[in-house]
């Protein structure tokens, strides 16, 4: 399996660059994954990433899109509680790209 080397630590990742072990996650690897995609994580990105991690912690799955938009809307204001805002932050799709940076497995199925 492939891995990302960072600060003397090795992070195992799957074929698509998602962390193999959830517990390996830290903020540095999130920033590094974003950097490899040519993105920079702002406070707005971190709001989403942190919510994903909290939700996963409780439910062992990433939140559905409406659960996520609702939570972000509550936190950051109604104008941001929609998928348009999330796609601006994560152009490859909030479910997939944000999950990757948050260290979560990629959502599978017809999505």
């Amino acid at each position, binding site marked *: 399996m492939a891995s990302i080397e960072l600060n003397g630590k090795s992070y195992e990742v799957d074929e698509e660059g998602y962390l193999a072990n959830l517990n390996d996650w830290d903020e540095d690897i999130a920033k590094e994954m974003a950097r490899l995609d040519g993105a920079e994580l702002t406070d707005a990105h971190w709001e989403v990433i942190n919510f994903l991690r909290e939700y996963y912690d409780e*439910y062992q799955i990433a939140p559905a899109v409406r659960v996520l938009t609702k939570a972000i809307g509550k936190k950051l204001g109604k104008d941001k509680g929609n998928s348009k805002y999330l796609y601006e932050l994560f152009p490859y799709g909030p479910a997939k790209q944000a999950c990757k940076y948050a260290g979560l497995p990629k959502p599978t199925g017809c*999505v």
Partner: protein
Amino acid sequence: MADFEVPTIKEDIIVPHINPGVMEGEGPFVARPEHQEALGFPGELVDNWQEAAVAKMGEMLKKYRSLKVFMDSCVKCGACTDKCHYFIGTADPKNMPVGRQDLFRKVYRRYFTIGGKLFPKLVGAEDFTEEVLNDWYNYFHQCSECRRCSVYCPYGIDTAEITMAAREIMASIGKGMKYSNEIIGKVFKIGNNLGLPEPALADTLEGLEEEVEDDTGVAVKYPLDQKGAEILLVTPSADFFAEPHVDGLIGYGKVFHEAGVSWTLSSKASEAANFGLFIGSYENMRRVALRIREAAIDLGVKRLIFGECGHAWRVAYSFLNTLAGPFDFLDQRYPVPQHILEFTLGELKKGTLNIDKSQNDDMTLTFHDSCNVARASRIGPTPGSQFETPRAVIKAVCNNFVDMRPDTIKEGTFCCGGGGGLLTDDLMEVRVKGALPRMTALKEVVEEEGVTHMAAICAICKSQFSKVLPYYGFGMDQIVSVHQLVSNALILKGSEQESEQAEAGA
């Protein structure tokens, strides 16, 4: 945006000059041992894989007479050559249906025909070498099992069944596909393709109830595991998770609410999809289907209704009774199973739904027939109802509807490009190129008829289009669920919208 060349949409759907080998490659990610073993397949390629593959092929030729007939009956007439969306989009001759079939046929001839055993070169027979296996793995994952080619074949050869057989043989020797096999494992373990556990599902549905109540002032319920409900709704888990799917789910709930029937979702059968079909594995397809039977019995329901999912409806309509029947414990006065669109059309005809079509006036719609619905089922009692029912529902809730050109709809519909287990990021090039004919037909009605949105009744189609539309210059939100349109137009009894309607009318 892409690390491959995105085709340009031309004036017409053009048959390309062949470009041999242009889509050669390693195919999608191979299933890991744990994904294989959960489905009863060997974890990795077995040592005697060639011998095992030929033995499996022999077994399948006996079990499926159709496979043997398909192998023997092709006369190389060429009618199928320009009918596959993957050939049109890629120009690779191995994506011509006959080219794809011949990958299988040459091995069949070598081991199962006298001519092929004695004079292989004369009859196009070949040993099942590693090179052939790799070609199989690559090109049998560039077929979405949509069966368009079979409509035009004078002998009715069904390439989908050949693809399914090839995938079954490959999985049985240890070379299955990661995307489909990992997902089937999740269905067994958790209940759905997503791996959405019951507490997350309950939380998601609760959120939807709040959303609908905020929008309308009416407490529409989205019940889960409610024993004694009349109807069990089985729907793709993408309906819980993604857009525009979730807007369709909201629509189903509103229709049930207005119809005054009790219904429930099931956490055990929280998935309509059955990827056992895609990998050609009867055993896995049966195991997936049996969950639905068990859920229906556990919950004591009287009716079984399927949500918007293409291949799930094929499995439900064509095979459910033999896979998981008999369903004699359900109320036989209703179709077993029934499609949600047939239910909604019935309510529209009865007049139980208060519809304000003008709510959809910001859109001009067209409809994408999903391959598995179009070519393998009906949605209602009569031939062709699978085409008429969705259009009747759309026209009942929208003022503006136009069809795409006739050779790209109904039984001649083009696959979205992501069906049959190909809806995975590692096959993005195949998916984007395979969408070319549908995108061409869509562009025509966008430019000539002012179409703004395309409606679909399949979770895969919806996800595929939201992903590939932008490659062709469209917006990802130009794909909608049919029940999303119903939801927009449906004025609930006692809702804020009903009061506004009354005031406007007064």
